[in-house]
């Protein structure tokens, strides 16, 4: 089991942490929830053995734990947004200052999205999941996943239009 746990960590921890960091916007909380995920897997290894898609199953478990975490803290949507306002370093460091600025603005723009839209956008853009897979991972209808993504990406597009135009024209 120890080797299996390490294999799962090496294969999926980065993706789960990225999702948690984008969803919770707090590195401390993301770490705690990531540990909770692996604790549950260590306690019940049969959970993953029955899963057809390991990554999808783990994302679903991670999302549920994150939701439970906020409910235990009696959090409501505005608490999510309060956490989203914290400036967590979501993206890897960039050497180029212009690139760093773009990543900073992208971090801020993602923080301005509602948590449910942010989750869908993350899974679509940075995990490359289909809407069907996203719907399964987040336990939402397929149409809901698609509409949340559309709303979220449109907001990001409006928010980042100036800096995106500069990127597109090669000025960055």
């Amino acid at each position, binding site marked *: 089991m*120890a080797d299996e*746990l*390490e294999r799962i*960590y090496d294969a999926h*921890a*980065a993706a789960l*942490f*990225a999702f948690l*960091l*984008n969803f919770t916007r*707090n*590195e*401390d909380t993301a*770490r*705690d*929830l*990531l*540990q*909770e995920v*692996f*604790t549950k*897997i*260590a*306690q019940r290894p049969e959970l993953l053995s029955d899963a057809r898609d390991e990554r999808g199953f783990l994302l679903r478990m991670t999302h549920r734990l994150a*939701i*439970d975490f906020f*409910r*235990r*803290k009696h959090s*409501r949507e505005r608490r999510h947004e*309060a956490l989203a306002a*914290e400036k967590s*370093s*979501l*993206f*890897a*460091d960039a050497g180029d200052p212009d690139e760093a600025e*773009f*990543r900073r603005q*992208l971090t801020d723009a993602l923080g301005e999205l509602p948590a449910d839209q942010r989750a869908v956008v993350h899974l679509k*853009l*940075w995990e*490359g999941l289909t809407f069907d897979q996203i719907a399964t991972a987040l336990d939402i209808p397929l149409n809901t996943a698609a509409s949340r993504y559309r709303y979220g*990406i449109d907001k*990001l*597009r409006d928010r*980042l239009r100036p800096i*995106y135009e500069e*990127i*597109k024209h090669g000025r960055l």
Partner: protein
Amino acid sequence: MDDFEQQLSRRPIAPPPTGWRDEILAAARQGRTGFQPVTERTEIGSLVGDRTAISATNEELIEAGGSVLARQRDFDNLPASAKDRLEACPTLLAALRGWLWPHPGAWAALAAVWVFIFFMNHQIQVDVQHDIELAGVRAPAADVLNAFEERRVAVEHYLATDKFEPPILDRPPVSNPRRTGSPPLMLLST
């Protein structure tokens, strides 16, 4: 994906720090959750200096974290059977919270509206009773009620038969004038 979406997706999200791997795996094997207090988190004040600590400016989260740590320590001291029961409770509560609309304020407002409705209904009944007492109205006596009932039956009979003929109940015994020897009606001819 259009170009904008591709631009976003190319930005790599920060990976978890490499030092976390051994800590998380060790904690997982020991059955510790993410809210287990670690050595450097013994006091709320120490969170300020910790790189991974919650922002010191967010006092609400610091207080919540401290209470969570205290509850975690209390939980660890419980026997295994009690731990199992308590672990099932948050899941049940979370499920109930998910089923019930997670807006306690709305539920409280709805309850307040119902209380107001019950209060107004009771108040109206009290006012009506008060008005009745002021008017000196008394509950009708049983014989009065019976009289009204008889009149009601009579009216229904009249309406049903469309004849001004008292119902059998009220009709006095008919006497035969020929048998009793009463003089017939005399038609006077002119």
